[in-house]
């Protein structure tokens, strides 16, 4: 390195400038998206989700009455259970490692020493991961949708697109929760552990807890419905069932109450619940990250 010279020999700019707010967010989002696409977790989750989605589609369509809308509904119902397991797991773990892993590697300090704000960094990482997750899900849905179109003759394309849309909303909500966990965790392994616990709680425990609570406290149907919409997975499930033109009666008296009370507004209420799960944890994560005393 004998040729090492100070880069101040280069043409000078007047005053070094910070990126604009949007510019900073976009830069971090693009980097996060690129890093996610190159990462093993993205590949693993995409392959796993795609294989399972295609398998569910084949199995659902292999039975009697697999043609037309009946075939679509059966496949969508099968996908629903798969999505409720896989999409939150993908999003929670991706979000949980976002900030904590940067902190653990020491790269967070270096990034924060650049002319950007903490909010720009966090939002940029969120949007980048959101784009990567959406891509991952769309690959799985795309191939599975191809199978579905081939076997059902293209019936239910609109409903299928809505299923994809609600799945993306669910994934973004879980990503927000994951990022919130990450902001509060010093170590990546701790953040991932909390994310897995949260996933278990949302997927299994809350369902059982709601059932137990309704029996124990003799909750009224409107109270059970209110509590159910607090769980983004339940909101997602009800939204998808409504979207399939199925009656929420399949969910018992609570579903019947929701259908009768909210009517056509029900999908919007459920979508709003998911939107709140996207916005509130993300906003809380930004506030906590900005106010954090240390790196």
């Amino acid at each position: 390195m004998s040729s090492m010279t100070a880069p101040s020999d280069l043409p000078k700019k007047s005053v070094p400038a910070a990126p604009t707010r949007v510019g900073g967010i976009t830069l971090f989002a693009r980097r996060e998206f690129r890093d996610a696409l190159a990462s093993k977790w993205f590949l693993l989750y995409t392959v796993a989700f795609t294989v399972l989605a295609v398998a569910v589609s084949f199995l659902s369509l292999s039975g009697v009455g697999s043609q037309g809308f009946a075939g679509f509904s059966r496949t969508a119902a099968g996908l629903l259970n798969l999505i409720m397991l896989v999409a939150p797991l993908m999003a929670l773990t991706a979000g949980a490692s976002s900030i904590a892993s940067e902190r653990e590697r020491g790269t967070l300090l270096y990034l924060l020493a650049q002319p950007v704000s903490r909010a720009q960094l966090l939002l940029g990482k969120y949007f980048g991961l959101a784009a990567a997750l959406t891509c991952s899900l769309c690959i799985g849905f795309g191939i599975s949708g191809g199978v579905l179109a081939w076997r059902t003759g293209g019936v239910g394309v609109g409903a299928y697109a809505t299923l994809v849309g609600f799945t993306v909303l669910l994934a973004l909500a879980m990503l927000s929760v994951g990022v919130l966990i990450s902001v509060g965790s010093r170590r990546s392994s701790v953040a991932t552990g909390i994310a897995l616990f949260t996933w278990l709680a949302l997927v299994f425990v809350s369902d059982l807890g709601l059932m137990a609570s309704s029996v124990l406290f003799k909750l009224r149907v409107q109270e059970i419905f209110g509590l159910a919409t607090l769980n983004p997975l339940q909101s997602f499930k009800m939204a998808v069932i409504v979207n399939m033109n199925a009656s929420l009666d399949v969910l018992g008296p609570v579903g019947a109450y929701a259908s009768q009370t909210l009517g056509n507004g029900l999908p919007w209420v459920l979508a709003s619940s998911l939107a709140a799960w996207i916005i509130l944890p993300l906003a809380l994560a930004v506030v906590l990250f900005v106010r954090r005393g240390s790196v």
Partner: protein
Amino acid sequence: MIRAVNINKRFGQAHAVSNVSFDIQAGGSVALWGSNGAGKTTLLRCLLGVIRFRGMADIGGLDVRRRGPHARALVGYVPQELAFHDDARLGSAIMFFARLRRVSGARAAESLAAVGLNGHERKRVRDLSGGMKQRLALAVALLSDPPVIFLDEPTSNLDASGRGEVVEALKRLRSDGKTLLFASHRPDEVILLADRVFVMEQGKVLSDTTPSALWPTEKPVQIVRLFLTKASEAEAADALRKAGHAVHLNGRGLCVAVPRGHKAEPIATLARSQIEVRDIEVLDDLQIPEAKQ
């Protein structure tokens, strides 16, 4: 150019930085000198605005807490150890920071060339040597030609050759009028690069002095670093001072200035006081008198 007023930072009950105030003029070069845990790194982080603190700090008239991104745009930061994503390629890594600093790709390439890293763009960060990583950090710090450079022990992980290259680059930056604030454990770097030294201990700036006041550079000296048991360091420093040596404790041993050809004197002095020396390092500061001429 850099102003700090009553900076305080606590981690729990521990005062990492305590009531630190100073002013550094444009073009000044200031070394932070002190033992491990003295608060040097925390002070740099406060000035960068990356951690919360009480007090006030501004860079180029910009409050680092209220206008953090704009203040940091005026600062190039070189950490103790470069923290890039290991999988990233050198070329894409510097391009990311070039965009953050709103400079062109051509300028990023020029910066790499300026630190001798052109031709290595396809290498992954994990494949770079320690010296190359520090040169990359320096290239990133200087991308937008900022007027202020913060360095946190930039040569601590480098061998003698790598250290010399970085010091040479910093000397050029200093002569170009950059404002430097750096933490260092090496007296030779402090003497070569700084015109002021903040001696820090337990989060406080104990004295705002000059390298020549700390180290007698008017006649040829060598700096010898003695490694002792922690318990005997203070007693050893007293014994050496009584014997007429300039002594400074820092986090990596006891630094003693000795006339050339008399490197064994401090060891003999300590032996008379029955203080055991575990190891010795002669710092490569033979050019100090020439550099000061």
